[in-house]
Structures are given as structure tokens and as C-alpha cells.
């Protein structure tokens, strides 16, 4: 059930320049899954709309969620100043996450499914919860995370759940280039791709995936976050079930889509 609810900040730390890691105690944790997101409200009366931020982690006791975000404007700037004990209002849990059953069903009975997780920039955080969930479900996880430079974050945690590779634009860590460069360089094999990152990266992945399923997480400007305003659409190959006009709502029909289903 979706709710607007007040959570309590358990901790916040800075992971890299402009990148923050916020742990929030909230009842939303009980439902949250990889690929889903929450709307985070500012306390600024001039900035009314909730900010969509992906679930980067759910605590084992399912009492708190973890959000990792980049300061991009006045909302995220405000969030970066939240301290332990502060209240923060959330709308969630929103969207459909990654379909674990579908991913599991991609293998044959002998060898575990190999899921290749590709995260670029601020698309890295949602991959972490996914790697944890997939690993727990017996999927073999290979993570390739791309950063601008040596200001990487969350890598140690990825290593817990996956074979982990790194790419950086300036070549200061891992493969110089983007995540696909790293995939090629390391000749990584996989049965499916799960990805989150900037649009050009997702476009390249759609192309790269070939026949294999690629589940990509899309972003768009949102207002309601719950499928009512039709603000956040993406063109789809087939007629969408809601408006019947080849326009799916990223906030509710996504944010995770099979790459072949959307026109990006």
C-alpha cells in the first residue's frame, strides 16, 4: 500500500563529493524492493513536489531504507543537511522494481542465472539493493559500476554480493571509459542485464544487449509519482495498458522496463 509517511533519519554520511548516504527509519521499508523508489519531500514551501530517489538498501529487519543521492538542486541540497533524529516525509513505495522471478526464470536448472548489473553515476545506488536481492535468490551477480573519476562509492559493498568491475571516465580507476567498455574489456558473460544510469548509457545498453533481456531503470520529471498526472511517460513499442497510446508511466508502469519495450 502506498503511503505518505514521516520517517526518522538514523544516519547520514557523505560518500564522495556531493554524494550522500541517508538511512531512514520508516514503515515503507517493509514493502520496499530493488528498483523501486520513494518520493522525498522538502521542508521548503517553494519546492512542493516530492523528489524521486531510488531504494539503495533495505535493512535486514525491514525497518529502515537507505537512499544514496547526489546533490542536484535545492531539494537534494536540503536533504544533505538532514541529521540523525530529523524527520523526513516520504511517499512510497513507488514504482515497480526489478522482476526477480523473471530474472531467475532466465536460467536453466544446471547453472545459476548470470545477471550483469550496470550502474552509471548516480545510477549506481539502486544496483546495490538489487545485487543483494539477486545474490540472496541464488543468482550469480556481476556488477560493473561506472564513475566519472576516482570518487567512487559503494564499491566495497558490491563486492559482498558480486564479482565487481569498475569503469571511470578519466581512467583513474578500473577501465577507462564507460561500463560497456569494462564489460568488453573483461569479456563478461551474462544471461541478462539490469541497468540504471544516464540515458545515453541506457541507449547503448539496449543496443549492446542484443537478444538478451535488458531491464533498465528510466528517469523522467515527475509530479504525482503514483500514475495520476501522466507527467512521466516514455514511448512504448506496444500500446500501453493505461492510456492506450504507446505511452507508459515511468512512475507506476516502471521505472524498470525491458529495454525492448520502450523507445528511448
Amino acid at each position, binding site marked *: 500500500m502506498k503511503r505518505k509517511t514521516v520517517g526518522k533519519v538514523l544516519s547520514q554520511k557523505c560518500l564522495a563529493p556531493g554524494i550522500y548516504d541517508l538511512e531512514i527509519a520508516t514503515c515503507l521499508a517493509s514493502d520496499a524492493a530493488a528498483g523501486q523508489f520513494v518520493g522525498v*519531500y522538502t521542508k521548503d514551501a517553494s*519546492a*512542493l513536489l516530492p523528489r524521486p530517489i531510488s531504494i539503495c538498501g533495505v535493512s535486514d529487519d525491514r525497518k529502515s531504507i537507505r537512499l544514496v543521492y547526489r546533490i542536484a538542486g535545492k531539494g537534494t541540497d536540503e536533504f544533505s543537511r538532514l541529521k540523525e533524529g530529523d524527520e523526513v516525509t516520504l511517499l512510497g513505495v513507488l514504482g515497480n522494481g526489478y522482476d526477480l522471478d523473471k530474472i531467475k526464470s532466465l536460467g536453466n536448472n544446471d547453472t545459476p542465472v548470470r545477471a550483469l548489473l550496470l550502474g552509471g553515476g548516480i545510477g549506481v545506488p539502486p544496483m546495490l539493493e538489487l545485487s543483494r536481492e539477486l545474490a540472496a535468490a541464488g543468482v550469480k551477480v556481476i556488477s560493473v559500476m561506472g564513475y566519472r573519476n576516482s570518487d567512487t562509492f559503494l564499491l566495497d559493498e558490491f563486492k559482498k554480493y558480486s564479482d565487481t568491475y569498475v569503469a571511470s571516465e578519466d581512467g583513474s580507476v578500473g577501465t577507462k571509459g564507460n561500463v560497456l567498455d569494462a564489460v568488453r574489456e573483461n569479456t563478461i558473460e551474462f544471461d541478462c542485464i539490469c541497468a540504471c544510469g544516464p540515458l545515453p548509457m541506457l541507449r547503448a545498453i539496449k543496443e549492446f544487449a542484443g537478444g538478451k533481456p535488458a531491464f533498465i531503470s528510466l528517469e523522467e520529471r515527475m509530479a*504525482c509519482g*503514483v500514475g495520476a498526472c*501522466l507527467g512521466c511517460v516514455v514511448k512504448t513499442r506496444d500500446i500501453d495498458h493505461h492510456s492506450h497510446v504507446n*505511452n507508459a508511466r515511468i512512475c507506476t508502469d516502471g521505472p524498470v522496463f525491458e529495454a525492448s519495450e520502450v523507445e528511448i
Partner: protein
Amino acid sequence: MINTQVTIAGVTFKNPVMEGSGTFGSGMEYSEFVDLNRLGAVVTKGVANVPWPGNPTPRVCEVYGGMLNAIGLQNPGIEVFCERDLPFLSKYDTKVIVNVCGRSVEDYVEVVERLSDEPRADMLEINVSCPNVKEGAIAFGTDPAALSNITKEIKAHTKKPVIMKLTPNVTNIAEMARVAEEAGADAISLINTITGMKIDIERRRFALANKTGGMSGPAIKPIAVRMVYQASHAVKIPVIGMGGIATAEDAIEFMMAGATAVSVGMMNFVNPYATAECVDGIEKFLESHGIADINELIGCV
């Protein structure tokens, strides 16, 4: 017993709280948050004779105290609407107002006729004021002659009560209200969004793909209250007021300005419980102020 019922064109609403067309889908999305039975009415997203794909993205952006939208009236067309949305709404004990959009008078008439036999559509709201579609829907709302003509045509093709939804992007809202009344409208609703623009100065680009968008939210409330006041004092038919309503106090302000009912629009996005909280808050206000009938508030200022 306090009376919270209001009546518009013979239709009685259990309370004056509705939501603004296009901000609540067809009720389905917000039914997770709000018991739709509590609302005076559900006003549906605008529906056309055929499916509309709407505008390219970005379609929405935030502005100070509000937002701009240029959805472009994406909708599945009247057939899907009648097969899916109306049956869903008929489960609830609330009135249903179907918001209608079109590119030509014929488009509107087609939808209106199709709805004539739908008992679950209690009233029709005719959107002649969407600033986000190029084809001239807004022209119906800004040109008195066009407004008069479309109102008459629609009235000639339906027996259901007709609400004409007016645009604030006009010099003289009182005149437009009078034109709608004279042409036979049973009620008017206002305001639709105000045309606005935002520029991303870093990228030197419009924030919306459509360049302009319709502004809504608390920022526009004083303009909306003024227009509701002017329109309701110019006509005898009831006025449904909206524009930035977030709380029961806002709703009451619109009623005091002259509105018989009110709609919560973009504030649903900010507080999905806003409509229900308005219903509760209005009841509390009436109680604490010893007002026996909500109709006393209408235009009382």
C-alpha cells in the same frame, strides 16, 4: 446536524469537495490513499473522442509554490473510458463528473453524445481552457463567440448538466462567465491553469518540451479566488472554484468568494490525502463556528 450538501444543477453532492480534472486520474490511483466515498465528486481526467498521445516530455516542472504542466491531454479515448473508468467509479458512492476535451466542436459533441446513455456520468465538465494543446481548445475559452457557440452545441446534444471550465488567461473573466451562462451552461468551473514558462538557464533550454505549460498550485490561489469572486458575482449559475487549494481553509476561502463547490488539483501530488483532509476540515470549521449549513458560506464575504 450540520449540512454539508451542496447542489449544482439539480445534482446533490454530499459535500463540496472534488478534485481537479487531470490531477486524480480517474480516481483509481488515489483510491489507495483516500476513500473515494468521502468525496463530493470525482472529476475525471479529460477524455476525447479518440485516444490522444499528449505532448513530448518533459511535461512537468516545479515552480515556486506550484508547478507547470504540459501533458497535452493524453487520454485513452471515450471507449476505453466508458469500459474501464466509469465501471470502476460506479463502485463508489460519489458523484462522477466527466471532463471532456476536444479539438473541434464535433469532437466534443461526439464524446458528449457517447456519454448521454452512461448513467454513471452525473455531469459533464467541458474543458475549453487547456493551454497545452496546439489545436485551439484554448481558443474556445478565450473567444466569447467561440465559447458561446460550443456551449450551445454541447447543450443541444446532451441532457446531462454541463459545466463549462473556463480559462484564467483572459482579460475579463466575468464576461466569459456571462457568455457561458447565456449560452446555457448549467455551471462554470474555474480556474484552469495559467500559462507559464520556465527556462533552465544553465542549458539555455525551456524546462518543458512544450515551451509553455499551465501553472497550478498555491502560488496561483489569489488569482483564482479573485476570478471566482468576479465570475460568481457576474452570473446566477453555480461556480466550482479551484486553483491552489491545499487545505479546508483554502476551500472555505473559495466558497466565501462565491464557489458552491471546490476542487483540489496539484496539491493531491503533494499531499495525497488533501481531498479527505479538506472534507474533514470543512466539517470541523462548520462545527467550531456554529454554522448549520455550508451553503451559508457561499459568497458570504
